C-alpha cells in the first residue's frame, strides 16, 4: 500500500459487491452453457477470483464442499509458474497431490493483467463427467492408487499467450472417455473470460494502486468480522467423533474421525490428530477436501453475511497430520474424499453441541450415491453417465426452534444441490421415472423433527450398464443422529430389481457389472435427525404431518405420543395426554 493513498471505506464495499457479482456472472455462464447435468443441474462447481498471490478475493461456491477447493491450487500455481505467466495463458489442473480436492473436479485458471502486470486470477472448477482412470465417471471403488482413478493433471498451460496448445489439449482428451468433457472445459474457459473482463474493467477504472490498497483493506475488514464472531464463542476444547463404514476393500472396516476443536480468544483450531490411518481403498480425503468440509460446516454455524475472501480463513487453523484417511499420503486413491464431508461435519456438530447447543443441527442424512454408466440406444448407443442426484436427496438435521429441511440432499452441498427436472431426466437419459416422493416416517422424530427423505423408483432402458455405488448411510451407525433426546433418521436403502426376478442389493462401495436393460432402480434416502424430545412436539404439528401422509398414524402414537383420528385428522387430546404422560 502506498503511504499517500487514503482508504475510502465506501470503495471497499463497492469492490466486495463487484467481485461477488463477477463470480456470479461466471457461474451463470457455466449453468447456461455446460452439457453434463452434474454441472448444469446439480451445479457441482465453484467460481472465484484471486489476487496475484493466489489469495481469495471472492468466490461463489454452487456446491459448498468446493468452498476451499480453488485457493490452495491457485497458491500452488503461483509458486509453480513464478514469472512464467503471460497474458492470454490458461492453466488446467486436477491433481490431488498438488493441492487439488478431488480428481474429477477440474479447474481452469486465467491470469488477469493490467498495464502488463499480473494483478489477479479468475478461476472455475467443475466436476467433470469423466477424467480417465479405470472406471468411467470418475468414481472407482476398486482403486488403490490414484492412477486407477484419473488421468493426473498437475498444472499445465492449455493456452500460451492466447494461443491454444493443441498438443496439450489432445494429450489430455486422449485420456478422457467422453467428448462432452471437452465442451464443458470450453465452458469453464468461457467463464474465466467473463471473470477476466469484469476484473480488468475495475483495474482500468480505479487504477492498480487504489485497487490493491482497497483489496488489502477488504481482507482486513473481513478478518475483523470473523475474529469478532469467533471471540463470541465460549473458549474451550470440545471433542467430537464420527465413523465412516466400509472402505470398499475390507469387510466390516470402520474408520473413525477424532476431532478436538479449540476456541481460544478470536481463533479456532480444528485438530484431527488421532484420526484413523488411511485406507487401502478409495475412502480417503486429500487435505483440501477435508479443509473444505471444515470451512463449510463452520460457516454454517456463524454469521452468513461475512464475505468469502482470504480474510475469513486467517483465524481458522486446521491441524490434519498426513497419513490419516482425512489427509492421505501419495499415491493413495482419494475419490471418496468429498463424500467424507458428511462424517466430518457430524464430528464438528457433535463437538460444537457442547459449546453451542442452540447453534448446531442434528445429523444430516449421509448420501448414498450411485452412478449409472451405459449406452443410450435412442441415440446410436451414445455413451452416458448419470450420478443419480435425483434419487439420493435426504433430509437435514433439526435445530433448536426449526425442523430440518426436507429433500435437501447431502451436507456437502448444504442445499445447493438441485433435483433434476423429471422431464429433462427422461430426455437426457434412457430412464423412465416411476416415483419420486417424500418417504413417509423418514424424519428423525424430535421436538423439532428432521427433514424428510425421499423415495425414488425408475426403469433403466440403457444398454451395457454398469453401476458404481459410492456412498454411506446403509449401516445402523451411519443414520443421521438425533440430538438432546431427538431420534435418528432411518438408514438409506438401495435395491436393483432385475427383469428376471432377481433382486440385487449393492454394497455402499461397489462396482455392479452387467446390469440388465429394463432394471428397476429403487432408492430411499433417509431423513435428518430430530432435536429435543419428540413428546414435546406440539400435537397439532404432528397431526398436520399425518394429514399430509408424511407420518403414519401408528408412528405418530409410537414416536410422538400423539393420537390422530384417521378420518378427520384431529388430535384426540385425551388419548394423547394419557399416552404422553404414561411414557414419561
Amino acid at each position, binding site marked *: 500500500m502506498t503511504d499517500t493513498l487514503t482508504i475510502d*471505506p*465506501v470503495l*471497499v*464495499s*463497492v469492490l*466486495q*459487491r*463487484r467481485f461477488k*457479482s463477477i463470480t*456470479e*456472472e461466471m457461474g*451463470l*455462464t457455466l*449453468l*447456461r*452453457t*455446460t*452439457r453434463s*447435468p452434474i454441472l*448444469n*443441474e446439480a451445479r457441482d462447481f465453484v467460481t472465484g477470483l484471486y489476487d496475484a498471490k493466489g489469495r481469495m478475493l471472492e468466490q461463489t461456491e454452487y456446491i459448498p464442499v468446493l468452498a476451499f477447493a480453488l485457493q490452495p491450487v491457485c497458491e500452488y500455481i503461483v509458486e509453480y509458474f513464478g514469472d512464467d505467466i503471460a497474458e492470454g495463458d490458461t492453466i488446467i489442473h486436477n491433481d490431488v497431490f498438488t493441492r487439488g480436492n478431488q480428481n474429477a473436479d477440474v479447474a481452469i485458471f486465467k491470469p488477469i493483467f493490467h498495464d502488463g502486470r499480473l494483478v489477479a486470477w479468475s478461476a472455475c472448477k467443475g466436476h467433470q463427467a469423466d477424467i480417465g482412470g479405470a472406471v468411467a465417471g470418475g468414481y472407482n471403488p476398486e482403486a488403490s492408487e490414484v492412477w486407477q482413478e484419473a488421468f493426473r493433471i498437475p498444472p499445465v498451460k492449455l493456452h500460451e499467450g492466447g494461443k491454444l496448445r493443441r498438443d496439450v489439449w489432445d494429450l489430455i482428451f486422449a485420456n478422457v472417455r467422453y467428448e*462432452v468433457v471437452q*465442451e464443458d472445459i*470450453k*465452458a469453464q*474457459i*468461457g*467463464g*474465466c*473470460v*467473463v471473470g477476466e*473482463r*469484469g476484473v480488468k474493467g475495475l483495474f482500468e477504472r480505479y487504477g492498480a494502486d487504489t485497487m490493491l490498497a482497497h483489496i488489502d483493506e477488504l481482507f482486513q*475488514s*473481513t*478478518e*475483523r*468480522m470473523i475474529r*469478532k*464472531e469467533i471471540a463470541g464463542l465460549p473458549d474451550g476444547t470440545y471433542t467430537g467423533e464420527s465413523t465412516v463404514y466400509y472402505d470398499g476393500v475390507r469387510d466390516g472396516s470402520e474408520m473413525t474421525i477424532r476431532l478436538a476443536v479449540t476456541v481460544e480468544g478470536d481463533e479456532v483450531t480444528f485438530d484431527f490428530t488421532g484420526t484413523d490411518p488411511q485406507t487401502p481403498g478409495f475412502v480417503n480425503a486429500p487435505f483440501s477436501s477435508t479443509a473444505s468440509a471444515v470451512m463449510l460446516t463452520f460457516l454454517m454455524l456463524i*454469521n452468513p*453475511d*461475512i*464475505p468469502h475472501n482470504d*480474510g475469513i480463513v486467517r483465524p481458522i487453523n486446521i491441524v490434519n497430520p498426513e497419513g490419516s484417511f482425512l489427509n492421505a499420503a501419495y499415491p493413495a486413491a482419494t475419490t471418496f474424499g468429498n463424500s467424507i464431508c458428511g462424517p466430518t461435519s457430524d464430528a464438528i456438530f457433535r463437538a460444537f453441541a457442547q459449546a453451542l447447543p442452540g447453534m448446531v443441527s442434528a445429523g444430516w442424512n449421509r448420501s448414498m450415491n450411485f452412478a449409472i454408466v451405459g449406452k443410450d440406444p435412442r441415440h446410436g448407443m451414445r455413451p452416458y453417465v448419470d450420478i443419480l442426484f435425483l434419487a439420493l436427496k435426504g433430509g437435514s438435521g433439526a435445530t433448536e426452534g426449526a425442523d430440518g429441511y426436507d429433500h435437501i440432499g447431502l451436507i456437502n452441498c448444504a442445499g445447493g444441490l438441485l*433435483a433434476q*427436472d*423429471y*422431464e*429433462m431426466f*427422461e*430426455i*437426457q437419459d434412457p430412464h*423412465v*421415472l416411476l416415483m419420486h416422493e*417424500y418417504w413417509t416416517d423418514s424424519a428423525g422424530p424430535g421436538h423439532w423433527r428432521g427433514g424428510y427423505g425421499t423415495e425414488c423408483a425408475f426403469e433403466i432402458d440403457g444398454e451395457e450398464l454398469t453401476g458404481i455405488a459410492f456412498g454411506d448411510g446403509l449401516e445402523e451407525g451411519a443414520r443421521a443422529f438425533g440430538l438432546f433426546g431427538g431420534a435418528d433418521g432411518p438408514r438409506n436403502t438401495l435395491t436393483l430389481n432385475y427383469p428376471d426376478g432377481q433382486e440385487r442389493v449393492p454394497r455402499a462401495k461397489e462396482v455392479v457389472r452387467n446390469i440388465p436393460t429394463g432394471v428397476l432402480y429403487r432408492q430411499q434416502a433417509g431423513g435428518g435427525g430430530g432435536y429435543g424430545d419428540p413428546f414435546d412436539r406440539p400435537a397439532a404439528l404432528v397431526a398436520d404431518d399425518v*394429514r*399430509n*401422509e*408424511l407420518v403414519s398414524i401408528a408412528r405418530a402414537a409410537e414416536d410422538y405420543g400423539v393420537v390422530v383420528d384417521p378420518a378427520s385428522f384431529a388430535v384426540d387430546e385425551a388419548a394423547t395426554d394419557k399416552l404422553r404422560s404414561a411414557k414419561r
Partner: protein
Amino acid sequence: MPRSLRRPVGERVLADGTVRAPLDEGDVDDAAARFREAGVEAVAICFMHAYANPAHEAAVAERLAAALPGVYCSASSAVLPQVRFYDRVSTTVLNAAVGPILDRYLTNLTARLDEAGFVGIMLIMQSNGGVTTPGVAAKLAASTLLSGPAAAPVAGLAYSEPHGERSFITVDMGGTSFDAALVRDGAPELTTDARIAKHALALPSLEINTIGAGGGSIGWIDEGGLLRMGPASAGADPGPACYGRGGTLPTCSDANLVLGYLSPEFFAGGRMTLDRDAAAAAIERDIAQPLGLSLAEAAFGMFRVMNVNMASGIREITVQKGFDPRDFPLICAGGAGPIHAAMIAEELEIGRILVPRESSIFCAAGMLRSDLKHDYVRSYHTPFSAEGLDTGRFQSALRSMTDEANETLASEGIRPEARRFDYALDLRYLGQYHEVRVDVPEAELNGPDMDAVGGCLHRTHNRLYGYDLEADGTAIELVNLRLSATGITEKPPIAREARVDTKADCARKGVRPAFLPGAGDFRDVTVYDGDMLRYGHRIEGPAIIEQVNTTVLLPGGYILGCDELGSFVMEKA
C-alpha cells in the same frame, strides 16, 4: 399447497407423446371427491410430458368441470405447453392460485363499471408488457403476476421518442424498491425465469430487476465495519427519521436531507415538513460515530452506497447479460429516483439521463400506451438442420400458435391489419442443457435459413458467455418455437410544448447549501422550481430542481435541458 391436496392420478405419457399407461378415471373421481370435501376452489392439472400430448390433461379437465361445477381448472398444457416439468407445474399452480381471485375481482369490477355507465374499454396489464381483455386475463391469471412495473418500458418509449432513442434503461425508485429494465430496439428484454416468492413463473415476463433500494432503505454497519444500505426499509411508516412518525433509523432520505438535496420545507410540495435534526442525529449515532466520520461524510457515504447498489441492479440486466450500460441512456422515474439519477449514471459511465416530468406516475402513463400482447410456445425438440427438421411438423406448430393468436386477438376486437406476429426459436448447441432465444423474421419460417439463424445463435452465445462454437461446426438443436402476438391499439397523444425564448433564471427559487460530489463539501447551490421550466430552458450544474412530487440533483459538470414533452434531460457538459 398442502401435500394432502396433491392427488396422484394413474396415467403416463412419454417424451415423444406416446401413451405408456392409460388414464385411470377412478383416480380422477377419487381426487374430485377429496377436493369437494375440502372445499377446493381451484385445481391445477399437471402430467408428465403433457406438452407433447395433452389428451390426458384435457380429459381430466373435462371430467373435473362436470364433477366440480364452479371450480377453476387449469391444465399445464394450456398454461405453458413446454418441456420442463417443474417450471410448468409451478406456473400452473400459480395460475390456479390466483385464477379464482382475479376472476371474481374482474367479474365484480366489470359489473360495477357497467352500473356506473362506463363506456370505455377496460384492459388489464400483464407481466409481458402488453395489455389484454378481462376474459383472457381471467383464464391466464398468472400472466398478470408481475404486471406492476411492466409498463415502464412502454412509458420509456414514449418519453424517449423526441430523442430518437429506441434503446434505453428505465429505472423507477420509490420508497422501498427500485425496478430496472432494459429496452433494446424498442423491445424490452423478456425472461421465462421469473420468481414469485421463490416459486418459478415460466410465462414470458419483462425482465425487470427489483432490488430493495428506496428512500426508506436503512443504513447500517456490518460486523467488519463496512457501511451497508438496506435491503431493510423503514418504508413510509414509521418511515425515515426525518418524517417524525416514530422512525429512528438512518435512511437514504435522511442522508439526502442532511446533504441538502431535499428541502425540509418543500417535501411533497410543502405538504410535509422534514426534521433535519432527527435525520442528523440518526446518522451521527448509527453511521458517523461508528465509522469515525463527520456527519456530512457519513451521509455522503450512505448516498454513494445507495448509488452503487442501484447501479449493481442495473448491471445485472446489462453487464451480466453482455450489454454495455454506456450504450444506453437512463430514463429515471419514481419519487426518489431523480436525486440519484446523475450519480447512478456516473457510476455506470452513462452519458445521458432523461427524467420525465411526471416521474412519479411513470408506469401508469405507460399502461395507457400499451398494446395487447399474447405469448405462445410449442415444444419441438429436434436437430436444427435440413435433414433433421420435419418441415411439416415445424409448420403445423407455427400454424397452431398463429391460429390461437388470431382467435384471441379477434375476440379482443383487433382488426387483422392491427395484428403483429413476432416469431422466435429457442436453440442450443447439441448436448447443451439450456437454450438461447433467437428472433426469426416471418419470411424465413417457410423454410428457415439455417445458416442465418445459426449465425444469430453464435453471436448471442458469445455476447452472453464469452465464447461460441461456430468454428467447431457444432450441430444445433431446436427446443421450442415461440410467437409473441401484438394487437396494436391507438395511443393517446402526448402534449408537446412550444420552444420558449426565455432564460431558466425565471424559475429560480433561491439558494441553499448542498454537499457537492465534486467539491467534497457544502456549497451554495441554486434551487429551481421545476414546474416553471420550459422547453428550451438550460441550466448548468450544480443545481437542484424541485417539483411537487420529486427533486432532481444536477451535479457540477452536468447540463440540464427541457425537451418538448417537458422531460428534463441531463448530459455531461
